[in-house]
């Protein structure tokens, strides 16, 4: 282990004034990421924060690290290039539901498929905020916005489903108002070797206020959120007496102490299970029938693109006859004209 760097959150704040709307969930996420970075013991110079376009994508300007505010939808691809150019970097992609899942959908799934070691923080407020209130690919069917005055006639993406479908190795979920949870998850995401996707349910005060309120309401939090922890039973509820069991391939909410159910009957969370079946069920859980799953849902080991790329180059180099460009130019069929 390298020497402790003793960085603090202050080391990650930039001199730029933060210009998100007062009360925007983004402030809390910024705070959580800065805390996570300070505690990761990674050199400040080795952080790179890459974003696309959208409210959340102003993020790099509020960080003191290397940062790149790119173009709409392309942050995943730019970040991939950064990581390949220098695999030693700790690369973060800051994106939103429109940026990652609409215009940048292709790059999003391919980043996950390749399993490049990048931490993708997906701010999901289910609305286009920067363009002032149009529905997004995560808006629910029937949602009324400026571009859907009669309600949308399409179903939303569930980000975690996409991650699993693209063979993701890491998926976690947090809410903007739980900075402690977000920080823990961001640290886990950074430590994971491969593509880590963290969906943060984020509130837009102006165009979609309260969209996640049923989940995030502090009074209902224990009933409506299931805090997942690896190796622990999936228990929730005000009195920690509710849990999940698997029955006929479906999740079911049961009450401990009723119908002979004991703590031992409750499903135990395993983030490392390669088969994504239970992870998928957890991702899909929605109110009112189920609590919403929070925490690290999936974290399975797998070969990362950047490591494999470096290893392949090293392997080929070790036995190569061509060591420099002069060798290359004179290789194969050549002839001399005297």
């Amino acid at each position, binding site marked *: 282990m390298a020497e402790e760097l003793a960085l603090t959150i202050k080391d990650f704040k*930039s001199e*730029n004034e933060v210009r998100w709307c007062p009360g925007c969930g983004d402030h809390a996420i910024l705070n959580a990421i800065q805390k996570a970075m300070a505690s990761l013991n990674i*050199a*400040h*110079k*080795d*952080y*790179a924060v*890459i974003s696309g*376009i959208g409210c959340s994508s102003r993020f*790099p*300007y509020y*960080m*003191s*690290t*290397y*940062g*790149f*505010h*790119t*173009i709409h939808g*392309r942050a995943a*691809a*730019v*970040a*991939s*290039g*950064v*990581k*390949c*150019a*220098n695999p*030693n*970097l700790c690369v973060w992609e800051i994106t939103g539901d429109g940026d990652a899942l609409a215009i940048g959908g*292709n*790059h999003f799934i*391919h980043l996950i498929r390749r399993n490049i070691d990048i931490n993708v923080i997906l701010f999901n407020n289910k609305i286009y905020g920067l363009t002032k209130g149009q529905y997004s690919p995560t808006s629910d069917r029937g949602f009324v916005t400026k571009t859907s005055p009669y309600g949308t006639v399409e179903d939303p993406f569930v980000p975690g489903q996409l991650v699993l479908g693209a063979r993701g190795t890491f998926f976690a979920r947090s809410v903007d108002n739980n900075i402690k949870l977000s920080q823990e998850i961001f640290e886990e995401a950074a430590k994971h070797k491969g593509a880590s996707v963290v969906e943060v349910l984020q509130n837009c005060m102006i165009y979609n206020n309260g969209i996640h309120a049923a989940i995030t309401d502090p009074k209902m939090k224990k009933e409506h959120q299931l805090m997942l922890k690896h190796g622990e039973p999936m228990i929730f509820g005000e009195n920690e007496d509710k849990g999940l069991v698997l029955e006929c391939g479906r999740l079911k909410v049961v009450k401990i102490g009723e119908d002979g159910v004991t703590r031992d009957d409750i499903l135990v969370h395993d983030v490392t299970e390669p088969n994504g079946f239970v992870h998928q069920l957890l991702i899909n859980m929605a109110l009112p029938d189920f609590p919403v799953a929070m925490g690290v849902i999936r974290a399975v080991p797998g070969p990362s693109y950047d490591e494999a*790329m470096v290893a*392949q*180059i090293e392997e*080929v*180099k070790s036995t*190569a*006859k*061509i*060591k*420099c*460009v*002069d060798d*290359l*130019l*004179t290789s*194969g*069929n*050549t*002839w*001399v*004209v*005297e």
Partner: protein
Amino acid sequence: MSKETKVIELEEVAIRFSGDSGDGMQLTGTLFSDASALIGNDISTFPDYPSEIRAPQGTVGGVSGFQVQFGTRRVTTPGDYAHVLVAMNPAAVKANAPFMRPGGTIIYDQDSFTEKNFQKAKFSTDNPFEELQLDDYFKIPVPITTLTREALKDFGLDNKSILRSKNMFALGLVSWMFDRPMDYMESFIQNKFKKKPAVVEANLKVLRSGWNYGMNMQHMTPRYIVHPAAIEHGTYRNINGNLATAWGLLAAAEKANLELFLGSYPITPATEVLQALSARKDLGVKTFQAEDEIAGISTTIGAAFAGDLAVTSTSGPGLALKSEALGLSVMAELPLVLVNVQRGGPSTGLPTKTEQSDLLQALYGRNGESPVVVLAASTPSDCFHYAFHAAKIALERMVPVILMTDGFLGNGSEPWRIPKMADMPTITPRIAKNAETYKPYARDEETLSREWAYPGMDGFQHRIGGLEKDLMGNVSHDPENHQKMVEIRAEKVKRVVDMVPELEVCGEQEGDLLVVSWGGTFGHMESAVREMRSLDHKIGLAHFNYINPLPANVHEVFSRFKKIIVCELNMGQFAAYLRDKEPDFKYEQFNKVKGLPFTVHELCEKFEQLLEE
């Protein structure tokens, strides 16, 4: 053996090999060309193939051709018209008749001249030569299929494998006619199929059978002698434009002491650049086959931000898709090379055919005021030089550079005198040195280029982006600042002119007609101007490799001629650009958009006409 052979001595000969796309004509042509170069002929090649991988057998649409010209003097084009056509079926005769020199020689597989194949090639009679008015041509019918089958009768091969060796018979026969050394081809075959000894034996047998057939039938096959060319001494190799481009980028990375990153998506005819660099893990190249064209350039921008020599390669439709991201590299002022191997457009257009119609897209095809440096290579081998220089300009001036090549250059090949890396110019990337004073958009007074600091460099942490920015890289909506930044980005590109060599004129330095051209047409232009000068015309050629910025002396050069004609494989894009940049002159135009290179003949005809007016 005393049979009489007709021996013809020629200064240059063009041969066209043609057959079904599955007949192996590209390999046959390549082997023949390499063998010609090895014995000291200068050569120039041009593959001409359909975009369908396997179009219906026997149809004109499925014909794949490969033309090579070789000679005793410098050869600058694959030849307008072929002296000799090798045709594996009637469709090949039909597809290639327009590219034959009047009275040329046609060697064809007489076994393929059947009713069924006439129908497939849509002949209405059973005499294709008469129908195509090729009566005056010298025709050599050879039962290639039968003889190949005969040669392989003891090999126990299936019918498909036997038919696949037909091209070797043709190669052997033509090699005899032109006295090409067989050892090169033999060792190639031994190498290529070294894991399949039976295939090696079969191919060698058929190759030798073809050669022997020529020798035994001397009375009917003429023999040609083309002496070696007098060329500069040195070590040579054959190289095509795409490979030369890839290797030029490698050379630049080595000189700049940077790692090379290529983000790209396969697209005809640029794919070989990606393939060639993917093969170079031994030199540490990082190639990233992206999910689409946009990711191709976006990963490249990321790699440029993070300190690599970053390159993306594409062709016209891909350039269109990359436009927005290219604008980001203009705004962020990152060093980046974009290689555009042009093809026929618009839209999907003619993927396998050559054209120069992406010029205005390269110059202007982005939102906002978005100037980039634009270079164009002019021969297959000088793609190496211009790829190297594109990278040098990008790295030393912190600016995106577009290198234009085209399908003709990319696929065409010629002998190339191999340079030594020690003789190549230095490349000094503008890597920031002083963290105390570093400002992301502080500029060099002379060149206006900023300094490059990338993640991992301690103390230089900063933010950049696609929004208009100030000196520190922070967002600025200040009207005065935007005006200033737009002007600076334009001026920075203009000042690249000090890295651009002066425009040189080939031929007459002043006179009646200045022929102006750019990019991949150079070989044909030079041949045409040479031919015109041999007829005592006062004509010169100004061929452009640097499009933006233009060389500093353009006005002076143009002033020395009475007339100017701009020749290009589009509808007049460079002419329009020159009218804007150098408005004091009248520009005649000669344009062609047939997916084919110019012919020297049509160029000379146009020049004659203009000189007579």
